[in-house]
């Protein structure tokens, strides 16, 4: 139906090519910014979305840098609703250069893998890691970043943990490389807790925190409370919360960046509304007599209103689609670069859908006033302005 009006609409856009180009170009940039901001937000929130609702973190009440006794494990295991417990410790690792920080944790392999069933790796690699006390499990993004392959011996430095031989270098062998579902974090590294416990020069019998798996996510709150009650008034009191809550709290700290980006995009969209509305108003003003002619030929007032609105929406949709396409393309191009720092950096479908709604709404809002003016225009007055 609208197809037969396309030559008329396209001719209107081509009337002032340079003005149309600049208007569309600014809309492209606005939606490119929107797309990149949404990609960033998606990357930041990906960790929260895949964090297990049935996994809890029990750490020292003061800070996660304070250690907890290894003896807590069995006491936590005894609490009703707990199905698994495993300790982890912040290793403070770096590779070759102190700037190459690596999130590394000594873990007990079997319960760790039970705790994270979403991590996948070839069975032979898994067995190799389980059976080698100095073996490490590394995420795909981390392995790609440093070019590590299975079998590589890696001199891992710890900024915290000195070995009994007085050095801070821990020679470990890459035994397995894991993948995670879309958006999952594969920048981590896991060492054997046994090896770590034996070799470290201090902090014997202490761990960083505990990962606790509960039978039912609905029990998370009550189990957290029970755990903290068990260790209340002890030298090492605990604070327990869900892994998702921890991830969310981390995102909230970083999230200010997302809020700032969103505020900028909102301001840009508002500016674009004014720019496009101005373009449409000028375009309608220049065509006053032509609109009069169209009405003389039998175009109704509502038909003219619709035509101006469609023209306005066409401008914003062309710009919006190009902008989102550019954001998507940049996401694909830079995904390998961002993988280590921002896994999941890409334009999500929800953002494309939201962008489509925004570009249509922007077009309608920008065209509303000029379209209403065109609709109200009296033919005789319009023709007189020729």
């Amino acid at each position: 139906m609208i197809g037969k009006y396309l030559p008329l609409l396209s001719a209107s856009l081509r009337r002032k090519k340079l003005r149309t180009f600049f208007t569309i170009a600014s809309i492209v940039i606005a939606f490119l910014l929107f797309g990149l901001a949404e990609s960033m937000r998606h990357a930041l929130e990906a960790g929260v979305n895949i964090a297990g609702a049935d996994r809890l973190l029990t750490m020292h009440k003061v800070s996660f840098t304070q250690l907890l006794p290894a003896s807590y494990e069995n006491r936590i295991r005894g609490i009703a609703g707990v199905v698994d417990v495993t300790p982890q410790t912040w290793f403070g690792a770096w590779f070759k250069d102190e700037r190459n920080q690596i999130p590394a944790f000594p873990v007990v392999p079997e319960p760790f893998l039970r705790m994270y069933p979403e991590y996948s790796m070839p069975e032979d690699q898994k067995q190799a890691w389980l059976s080698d006390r100095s073996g490490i499990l590394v995420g795909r993004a981390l392995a790609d970043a440093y070019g590590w392959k299975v079998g590589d011996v890696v001199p891992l430095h710890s900024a915290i943990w000195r070995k009994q031989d007085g050095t801070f270098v821990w020679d470990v062998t890459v035994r397995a490389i894991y993948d995670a579902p879309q958006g999952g974090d594969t920048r981590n590294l896991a060492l054997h807790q046994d090896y770590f416990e034996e070799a470290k020069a201090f902090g014997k019998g202490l761990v960083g925190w505990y990962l606790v798996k509960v039978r039912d996510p609905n029990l998370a709150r009550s189990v957290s409370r029970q755990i903290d009650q068990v260790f209340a008034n002890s030298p090492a009191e605990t604070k327990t919360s869900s892994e998702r809550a921890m991830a969310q709290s981390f995102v909230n700290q970083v999230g200010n960046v997302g809020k700032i980006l969103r505020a900028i995009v909102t301001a840009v969209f508002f500016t674009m509304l004014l720019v496009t509305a101005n373009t449409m108003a000028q375009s309608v003003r220049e065509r006053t007599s032509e609109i009069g002619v169209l009405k003389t030929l039998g175009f109704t007032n509502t038909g003219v209103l619709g035509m101006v609105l469609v023209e306005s929406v066409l401008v914003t949709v062309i710009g919006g689609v190009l902008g989102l396409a550019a954001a998507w393309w940049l996401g694909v191009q830079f995904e390998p670069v961002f993988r280590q720092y921002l896994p999941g950096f890409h334009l999500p479908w929800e953002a494309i859908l939201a962008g489509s709604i925004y570009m249509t709404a922007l077009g309608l809002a920008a065209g509303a006033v000029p379209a209403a003016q065109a609709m109200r225009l009296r033919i005789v007055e319009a023709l007189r302005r020729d």
Partner: protein
Amino acid sequence: MSVGRPIVRIRDLVKEYRRGAEVVRVLDGLSLDIEAGDFVALMGPSGSGKSTLLNLIGGIDRPNAGELEVEGLRVDRLGDAALAHWRADHVGFVFQMYNLLPVLSAERNVELPLLLKDLSREQRARRVAAALRLVGLSDRAKHRPRELSGGQEQRVGIARAIVTDPTLLLCDEPTGDLDRRSGDEILNLLQALNREYGKTVIMVTHDPHAAERAHRIVHLDKGLLREDTA
């Protein structure tokens, strides 16, 4: 020269405009009948109300009082949308300044009124080609208005006016912007449309030479009918 039943029936038509605080009465109770198939020239000094009368007959303006009937329909009583549809079906306009859309080719300009009809692209193309052939501009179909002479532009304007096969052809100074030769070509065309295709032509003109082509000349002055000669 009366050649059939009245197609336009006007009784006591009044049209006023407001100019600041002043109310100007352009038509002052004018009555007039125009027969189907007639060729009428409306003449008179500037401000006599001839263009206003043409606009009212064509339904692009509304009277303040009186009756205006076209083909038995009280046009003055139609709502905006109904009036627009009526114009699309029954009236073809030819303007002094042609009023073609400069960004569209001749054939796209002629096609405009057909966009409002339920026609396929092929049907529209056939009608456009026929209209352009009738005005002798088949070879200029792809040209933009700025690539045409004034006479050719006016012929495109006439093709646009007749492409929907309207009963009434309303022309406001159709030769006013043309030289004598091009003006004659346009008048020949209007005469042919009147004689051979039975179109009722109402033409506003200042030019007695153009008015001679009409069957009937109606003189207006100060919003009233002064002289009506066949």
